[in-house]
């Protein structure tokens, strides 16, 4: 599966369109990690545990999107976009969407 965020795949031509595919995941924060993040709010800097958590979650959202494209018979997803929204105080949604296509 080839993923790009441009309107096609360089060096290949699109032979079939399957429409929009999407994947999302809602993650809640970890109490222990949140205590550490509280300390980080005093001295500042990167919160590594959150970076990892969000990267893992985004990967999961991408995997769900890829799975959906797979069942349609696509071999590439073009024009992929990402969005993050915080739903309530304790949870965030990570969302990925794109257009499933078959390229040759």
């Amino acid at each position, binding site marked *: 599966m080839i993923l790009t*965020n441009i309107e*096609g795949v360089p060096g290949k031509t699109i032979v079939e369109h399957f429409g929009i595919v999407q994947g999302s995941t809602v993650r809640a924060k970890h109490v222990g990690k949140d205590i550490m993040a509280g300390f980080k709010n*005093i001295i500042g800097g990167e919160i590594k545990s959150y970076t990892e958590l*969000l990267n893992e979650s985004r990967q999961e959202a991408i995997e769900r999107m890829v799975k959906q494209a797979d069942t349609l018979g696509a071999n590439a997803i073009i024009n992929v976009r990402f969005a993050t929204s915080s739903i309530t105080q304790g949870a965030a949604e990570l969302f990925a969407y794109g257009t499933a296509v078959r390229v040759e």
Partner: protein
Amino acid sequence: MGSFLEILIFLGLLALGYFAGHYFERKHYKSIRLRESQTLHIPLITVGAKPPWPNAKEAKLFIGGVVISTDYFKTISAGLRNLVGGRVMAYETLLDRGRREALLRMKEQAIEWGATQILNVRLETASIWGAEGKQSVGSVEVIAYGTGIKE
């Protein structure tokens, strides 16, 4: 006595935020500048969504993400700034660091893969889990993504 202790704790946190925050910020900027000069050979392009594209055989999506947090001193100084308005320098540098770090992480992954260019670079910023009243800019997530190509 109780209020005296409270003031002492406040001043302690303020000093810790100021010194530790500044130290880490300087350190982070130093690393950002170094890595930026090391990765200058790969152009990042914000156009390129539509063809024609440069000649390429392979393309792959790259994502760089970072969650960055404010320090106590910045929070307080931004709070004071809210009273008079104007530029909030404390948060400007925070977001600048976040964006540059996210771009660098994306770039470093692409270089490892062998990319010659990164097309259609996009940046997204989201405030993460910080809806706690006044301290709403507790931490921000910045992601950078784009399509790496190689010949």
